[in-house]
């Protein structure tokens, strides 16, 4: 697969990328034979993606502008540090540039890019000192990480709103595997089947890890409550 290359763009070409002409796009299609379903609509992003895959630098820049906020925010949630999050965002888009030609459309591009970015973050976290282990291993339950059962402590739900910063700190202190699942499910709103597909784990594993992450956060928040951190 040839690597994407920078191409010089005329101003007209650049303008057509930012405002794709739908009618012209349709004219380029072969008429569908009778009895076959109509081809999927070519969205502006799909067109931009195809151009980026062909090495169009302007189109790649456009993809960056479409996805930078989401990818940067994901990195920031995972590492909790602006400088690191920017480095990871840069690395994610460099990886995207290297691999964009391999995207085959088996999943949505945003899902594929998300997964690529998650892998970048995971690699980074492992380099920072996480044990060298696969994600599945990192997410396997261990005997000392079972549910907290400190019943009888103050009820968090009766304390009013949980302080956002306290909870963000507690999330940041979670083990990486738990933090990843919690961020993807409870913060970003992914479903378990989507997370399982992204992380190559089972739906049951994703559910189990999320439950344990919430239990750990509950313990951390109760501790903060005792110290007077939770409002």
């Amino acid at each position, binding site marked *: 697969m040839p*690597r994407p*290359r*920078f191409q010089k763009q005329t101003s007209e070409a650049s303008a057509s990328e930012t405002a794709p002409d739908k009618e012209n796009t349709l004219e380029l299609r072969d008429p569908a034979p009778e009895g076959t379903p109509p081809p999927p609509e070519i969205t502006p992003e799909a067109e931009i993606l195809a151009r980026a895959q062909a090495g169009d630098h302007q189109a*790649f*820049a456009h993809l*960056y*502008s479409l996805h*930078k*906020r*989401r990818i*940067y*925010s994901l990195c*920031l*949630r995972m590492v909790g540090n602006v400088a690191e*999050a*920017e480095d990871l*965002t*840069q690395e994610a*888009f*460099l990886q995207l*540039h*290297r691999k964009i030609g391999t995207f085959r459309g088996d999943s949505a591009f945003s899902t594929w890019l998300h997964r690529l970015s998650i892998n970048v973050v995971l690699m980074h976290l492992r380099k920072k000192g996480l044990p060298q282990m696969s994600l599945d291993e990192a997410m396997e339950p261990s005997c000392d990480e079972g*549910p907290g059962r400190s*019943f009888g402590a103050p*009820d*968090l*739900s*009766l304390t009013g*709103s*949980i302080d*956002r910063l306290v*909870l*963000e700190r507690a*999330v940041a202190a979670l083990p990486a595997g738990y933090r990843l699942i*919690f*961020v993807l499910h*409870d*913060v970003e*709103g992914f479903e378990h089947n989507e997370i399982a597909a992204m992380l190559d784990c089972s739906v049951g594993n994703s*559910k*189990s890890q*999320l*439950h344990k992450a*919430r*239990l750990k*956060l*509950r313990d951390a*928040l109760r501790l903060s409550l005792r110290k007077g951190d939770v409002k």
Partner: protein
Amino acid sequence: MTIDPKPMSCEEFQEQLSDFVGSGVDLENHPHFRDCEICKQLYRELETIAEAARRLFPDRQPEDNLWDRIESAIKREDGFIEWE
């Protein structure tokens, strides 16, 4: 989501808890939930955490110069490979 009507232990209920939390399911008629204050409290607390999580880490934009850094890195990579 359907609720299993048969009586269950705390452990059995808590195994299903991750499906209940954040799902919006009404547990008031759940036979275990109705009668177990411990599991009720646990459920309420996990619901509170899941609800609070939606307001965490609002999306943020990276610095404007990040694209310049990425573009420079791409050019370096491409130039290096083409030069090779």
